[in-house]
């Protein structure tokens, strides 16, 4: 019984293709994790890396408390079920199940008991003396499961175990595997390309595409809050409808215009308040996603006011309990192919419809999803990233939402009227603005606070640890402030004030140093050679911790460790001004009111450092190696 932890896992093939990119995940004990995605997305590769059948190019894989990167599969305490069952054809079912135990040299009686027990769980006791050839697909899969569970592994890995079975058997086995999971109380990792399997079985699902993790979430969240268009389209049958269109915010309303259709719908802004304002300008094209079940036939007339649009029916699919109506919001089109105007409606099927009929369809826009047309990222996030506000700067004072704050010296700007971007995590709880808490939701490990400041909405994100500062929940009042180093002010399309970069980067390399030390040993001073490993930035040497150097060796190998170009990444708080360290010269002192920073140049890089006093001239910086990250430059692989 164990956790599995994947940190910055990469699979890079010799020809440079990255099959898996920066896979990060903490799998809790007893979870049922499903990796899902189209073929070639890297899900099987990831599973095989966990199994040890595939080398890990970079990253750290832990099963339980052990780093298992270089461990043989047999020592990892895992079991695996393969797509084609991989039963040994020349052995009986009994021998198949017992094979692993025999190799582990267990006593015969114990083997027998275990095999019989496993066979009973799976209901294959009658077949124990048969060869795999004489069995059906479902029975073979049970034997494969039996072979896995008999070893009582910490983690069960299943690689598309049901895809060779027919549809009916698949449904049945799905339930059985879920039952098995409850019974065994083991961590399961399950790979499939079938989203139905993923949704029905997983406690958490990892959606992958082209080697990148798209989203890791519970089935429900995946369905309700897809992070991008791919996930939205992948999860759910029939597929989500996607339209192209524009959004225009006028006052407290937003009008949605669909490309290729006359239809225009106006909704109150409060419905879309989480959307990024840049997309509400009436020009930027967005992808509007709406699930078939959120569209329904209605008798209401379509007009500008409500969320009803006209659709021309092209064909329908009767599924018995419900009917899928295929139509087109472009009344000129016939919509047999997939297009950005096609719509699928899930309906109870009571109304007789003919191809060519024009019907009225009501859209449930409370459940609309918006995606960027190019990047396909969600622009209506569950946790908004920024508050987009109008603001005014006048003689060093920033006015927004009816509040006024003094701009610190580092964030000074000329007088202007423009837009203010306050990241939700830049709202602090120690200022002197009074805001009222409207709601507090816990999601994705943080709390999303919806506040009102002078009656206007403002979002903030708080971690549980911040809550000591008395947030009682809805209805209470909190003191808030703004972290100025994170805000952006835009005027006439130009960024007047930009936030301070969160990460500093230096080029560095990993080196070996030899030194002679004098060691006192039983009263005598002895000279002792010592080998030290560390990072050099410029001419400075920083000894690496044992753990870090092991990570470097594990990722790069002992030969390449010293020749590979590396990049060091650290935040402004992870650098301290000191007597020794990286040489830097101060370009500017930044005062953000409560905090002070130095903007320095290190070689060609610009670096920001937290500092309590103003210093100028040349300084030296000492990174905190507990928090520094190291990235391989060439392949962009995060090692530490």
């Amino acid at each position, binding site marked *: 019984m164990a956790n599995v932890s994947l940190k910055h896992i990469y699979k890079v093939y010799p020809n440079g293709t990255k099959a898996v990119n920066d896979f990060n995940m903490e799998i809790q004990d007893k979870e049922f994790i499903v990796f899902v995605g189209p073929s070639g997305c890297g899900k099987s590769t990831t599973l095989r890396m966990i*199994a*040890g*059948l595939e080398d890990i190019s970079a990253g750290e894989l832990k099963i339980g408390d052990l780093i298992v990167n270089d461990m*043989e*599969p*047999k020592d990892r305490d*895992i*079991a*695996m079920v*393969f*797509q*084609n069952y*991989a*039963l*040994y*054809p*020349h052995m009986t079912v009994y021998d198949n199940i017992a*094979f*692993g135990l025999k*190799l*582990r040299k267990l006593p015969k009686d114990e083997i027998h008991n275990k095999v019989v027990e496993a066979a009973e769980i799976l209901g294959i006791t009658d077949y124990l003396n048969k060869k795999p050839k004489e069995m059906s697909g479902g029975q073979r899969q049970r034997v494969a499961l039996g*072979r896995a569970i008999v*070893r009582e592994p910490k983690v069960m890995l299943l690689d598309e175990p049901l895809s060779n079975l027919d549809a009916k058997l698949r449904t049945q086995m799905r339930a059985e595997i879920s039952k098995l999971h409850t019974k065994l109380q083991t961590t399961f990792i399950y790979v499939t390309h079938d989203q139905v399997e993923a949704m029905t079985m997983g406690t958490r699902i990892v959606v992958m595409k082209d080697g990148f993790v798209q989203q890791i979430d519970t089935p429900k969240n995946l369905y309700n809050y897809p992070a991008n268009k791919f996930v939205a389209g992948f999860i759910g049958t029939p597929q989500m409808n996607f339209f192209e269109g524009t959004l225009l915010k006028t006052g407290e309303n937003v009008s949605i215009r669909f490309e290729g259709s006359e239809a225009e719908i106006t909704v109150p802004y409060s419905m879309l308040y989480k959307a990024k304002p840049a997309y509400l300008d009436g020009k930027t094209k967005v992808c509007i996603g709406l699930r078939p079940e959120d569209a329904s036939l209605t008798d209401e007339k379509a007009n500008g006011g409500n969320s009803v649009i006209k659709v021309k029916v092209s064909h329908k699919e009767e599924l018995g309990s419900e009917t899928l109506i295929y139509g087109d919001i472009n009344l000129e089109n016939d919509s047999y192919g997939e297009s950005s105007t096609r719509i699928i409606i899930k309906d109870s099927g009571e109304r007789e419809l003919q191809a060519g009929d024009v019907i009225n369809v009501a859209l449930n826009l409370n459940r609309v999803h918006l995606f960027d047309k190019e990047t396909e990222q969600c622009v209506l996030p569950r946790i908004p990233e920024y508050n987009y506000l109008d603001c005014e700067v006048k003689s060093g004072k920033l006015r927004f939402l009816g509040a006024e704050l003094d701009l610190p010296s580092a964030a000074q700007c000329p007088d202007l009227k423009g837009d203010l971007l306050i990241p939700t995590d830049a709202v602090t709880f120690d200022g002197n603005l009074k805001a009222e808490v409207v709601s507090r939701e816990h999601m994705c490990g943080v709390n999303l606070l919806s506040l009102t400041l002078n009656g206007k909405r403002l979002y903030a994100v708080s971690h549980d640890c911040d809550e000591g500062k008395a947030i009682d929940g809805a209805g209470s009042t909190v003191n808030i402030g703004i972290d100025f180093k994170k805000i952006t002010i835009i005027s006439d399309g130009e960024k007047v004030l930009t936030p301070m970069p969160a990460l500093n980067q230096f080029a560095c390399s990993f080196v070996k140093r030899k030194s002679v030390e004098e060691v006192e040993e039983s009263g005598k001073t002895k000279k002792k050679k010592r080998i030290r490993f560390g990072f050099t930035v410029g001419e400075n040497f920083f000894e690496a911790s044992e753990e870090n150097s092991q990570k470097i060796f594990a990722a790069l190998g002992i030969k390449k460790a010293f020749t590979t170009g590396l990049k060091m990444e650290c935040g402004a708080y992870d650098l301290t001004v000191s007597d020794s360290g990286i040489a830097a010269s101060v370009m500017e002192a930044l005062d953000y009111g409560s905090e002070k920073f130095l903007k320095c140049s290190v070689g060609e890089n610009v670096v920001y450092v937290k500092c309590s006093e103003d210093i100028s001239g040349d300084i030296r910086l000492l990174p905190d190696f507990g928090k520094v990250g190291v990235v391989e430059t060439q392949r962009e692989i995060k090692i530490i």
Partner: protein
Amino acid sequence: MEKRKFRSKKVSERITLAVIYTILAIISIVWLVPFFMLIIISFRGEAVGMSADYLFPKQWSFDNYIKLFTKTKFLTWYGNTLLVSAIVTVFQTIIVLMTSYALSRMRFKLRKPLMNLMLILGMFPGFLSMTAVYFVLKEINLTQNLLGLMLVYTASSAMQYYICKGFFDTIPKSLDEAARIDGASRHTIFVKIILPLAKPIIIYTILTAFIAPWGEYMFSSFIMLGDTDKYTVAVGMKSWIDNATLMSEGYFSIFCAAAVVVSIPITALFIWLQRYYVAGVTGGSVKG
């Protein structure tokens, strides 16, 4: 109208079938007649030498067979060949299996170069290396020695990995992976998983390895040059044919008797294991 067309089609089909049967019958005769001739001549009782102008013997007798075993060295040659075949079969099969497994399942830097190298080596006429091998064998006193012949036959067996590797390649890799997860070492996988599954190809390898020395002439004639006690059947029987005096003394019938004796065990073996041979040659695609 339609009915007639249907019938005409049937008739034409029958004619085609008849033609094919005729052709097949002719082919069978052409292919079998020489062997019947061989058998018939072996029972020829009279010593006519090469001047015989008839096929069926005037006197049917077993004399040739009796002479073959009593008056000639055939039995020695037969024993030699059997011994060489048996031992070569064992070692060649082991070597071929080992090489095939390594090339099919293991991934190492020199794998491709090694396969290319063996491809290129296969293009050199085998006899080219014979002189050098001969002198090496001579240095270690293995010429005119069966052991030397065995060594020569076995030494380059690795180059015959091709068919066997092809078979191994068809065994799913997931079996290996499942076994690895079950805790098996590569060696255990080879012995306990792959070998039991490779029975057809093992038998094929054994069969071809066993048959080869019976028909091989080039190397054995060179190595055994001059020592008639160490001849294999091929070399020995060729030595009769090359000897015009012997042939005129009616050794042709004895030769035929010898040919029959040589053919019997191999044919029997072959018919017994035909299934595996055909499977090996065709990559396992012929059923029945």
